[in-house]
């Protein structure tokens, strides 16, 4: 496999890149921080990646997407899988207090994420197809008091991914939409962990299976599929009273 991952110096993306490296895939990392990219590249090379490349790319700057993808494709001499795990996260209280931060989160998680997927999609289709794996969130599955803007951007991203799958699958594009539940990463380190909290390595193993098999939607950890089925069925009156 020749995979490009955006946002894989951390969290679930890091775990996924490592699993790919361990089985000998060629991996290119896109990210903002050159030092973090270099360290992760060393890690993946030691773990066994057939090839490792890096390119700087900033989710706040859509102009950086095309050049970064092209540089990675050139370095790997091709691509068959592109993964987007980069995203912004903040709690509703933080966003309420800082409208500029809120606007930035919406731009990164929705408009710019879709712009990246479009840049990735056109490049995969131009090469005859491939897999586009998009990390969304269960927070986009049902509005809760705590999901706020973050959940709204993820709902929009999930909607976009599903429509992409319907439209482009016949042309060879496989869209894998990942909906992680609560996963213990740096992003969630300051949040109280709910029941069914997952570990990034276990989530990554499931996502890699989904990529290999072309599953259109994957909840990870798997239990969150049932959890969200139940949460989606709850009446509005219950959601008004619940605090989760």
């Amino acid at each position: 496999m020749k995979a490009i991952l955006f946002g894989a110096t951390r969290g679930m993306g890091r775990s996924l890149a490592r699993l790919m490296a361990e089985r000998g895939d060629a991996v290119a990392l896109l990210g903002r921080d050159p030092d973090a990219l270099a360290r992760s590249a060393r890690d993946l090379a030691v773990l066994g990646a057939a090839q490792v490349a890096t390119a700087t790319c900033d989710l706040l700057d859509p102009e950086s997407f095309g050049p970064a993808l092209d540089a990675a494709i050139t370095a790997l001499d091709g691509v068959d899988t592109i993964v987007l795990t980069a995203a912004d996260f903040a709690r509703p209280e933080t966003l309420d207090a800082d409208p500029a931060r809120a606007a930035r989160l919406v731009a990164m998680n929705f408009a710019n994420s879709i712009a990246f997927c479009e840049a990735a999609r056109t490049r995969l289709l131009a090469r005859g197809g491939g897999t586009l794996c998009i990390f969304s969130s269960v927070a986009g599955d049902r509005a809760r008091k705590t999901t706020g803007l973050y959940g709204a951007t993820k709902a929009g991203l999930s909607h976009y991914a599903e429509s992409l799958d319907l439209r482009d699958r016949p042309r060879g594009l496989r869209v894998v939409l990942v909906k992680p539940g609560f996963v213990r990463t740096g992003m969630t380190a300051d949040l109280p962990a709910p029941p069914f909290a997952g570990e990034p390595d276990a989530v990554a193993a499931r996502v890699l299976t989904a990529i290999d098999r072309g599953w259109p939607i994957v909840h990870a950890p798997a239990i969150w599929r049932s959890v969200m089925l139940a949460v989606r069925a709850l009446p509005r009156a219950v959601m008004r009273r619940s605090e989760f």
Partner: protein
Amino acid sequence: MPRIAGWGGVPAVEGHERLGESLADVCRPASLTRGLGRSYGDASLPASAGAVVAGTRLGDRVLAFDREAGILRAEAGFRLEQLDRLTRPAGWVSPVVPGTRHVTLGGMVASDIHGKNHHVAGCIGAHVRSLLIQVADGRQLEIGPEREPELFAATIAGMGLTGHILEVELALLAIARPWLVVEIETAPDLAALVAGLRTASRSWPYTVTWVDALSRGKHMGRGVIIKGRWAAADEAPPTLPARSPSGLLFVPFNLPGWVLGRASVRAFDEIYYRVHRWRTGRTIVHPDGFFYPLDGIRDWNRLYGARGFIQHQSVLPVDDGDDVITRYFDTLTRHGGASFLTVIKDCGAEGRGLLSFPRPGLSVALDLPMRGAATQSLVDALNRHVLDAGGRIYLAKDALTRREDFVAMEPRLAAFDAVRRTWDPERRLRSALSVRLLGDTA
């Protein structure tokens, strides 16, 4: 507010870990850095509620692995289980491992862990080539046996009190096959057990004994002697099964306190002894089962219930014919101490770490359910024996030792304090343990 505790569950302090992928950033405002929290007592706990504690577990990248020379460099949060997975297929292993693979490289160095091969390999500190450390004023330094040797010696077994360990470079041990040849024998009493252990250690690189700490009279100290060595090329297959056999059992919640009461420990000891008497002989075993037997039961610390448990591990300098071990066990049984897992191991020479635990003699490790004042007085009584014998306790397992006892056991403390004065004159780096035993302010 969540609580931070060691593996024994007691004590616990309110606070939460500061986590992040960049260890230098995560550690900067912290008064202490911890790994996976597998030390038993208060070594990885903040000095006071709310003090900032950094966690290394997201800083777990491997930075270099020389497959010819067997040298590995990784960030401090890199875990032993990751190391095993990476290096075993290439014919290398960590030269020293503790009883669990759920530890970080940084934690292994900070505790200067020892293992079943201490009598030949020493502690992990003997195999550390270099460390990247961030000292209290924020400076980063590469230190080793030749570079800043005093700071290096204090950091090995320094319990995180000399600086934040960011990266570790380790010399690995070459193996022909990733399997172990293991022999087990039983010993009918304490004298036979200690003699058998000493004999075994003359020809085996890995030796340990498990002791039935409850039987009295002529059975007192009966136990099982476990001996192992890495298999030679003609003795075992070149690879391990893809999945390690452990991890199938787990303890979902804290069990009621009576589960590990005296009766059940006695039953366990009886069964363990009989099973091993029946199982003696030579076998080829998976390294995970040999080195990390309890990792097969996830969250086994919950067996002790919400009140938690403590460990007491000490090393007693013992000459042949000395009855200090017998008197130690007499005290244990007189106080009604029911230790589920009692382990005796012979230690080799003292390591380079200034506060490194092992020294020549016999190490005795006990698991004791926490029962408040009764447990405190048991630990006090055991420490009396340690002091009388000129031994010392293992900080990574301690929760209840009193400061005056520790100071009396530890003539090297002045040298350690001197290094701290040089690199951290304001004692910005401290822990619950350093408040309890080294006189730091909370």
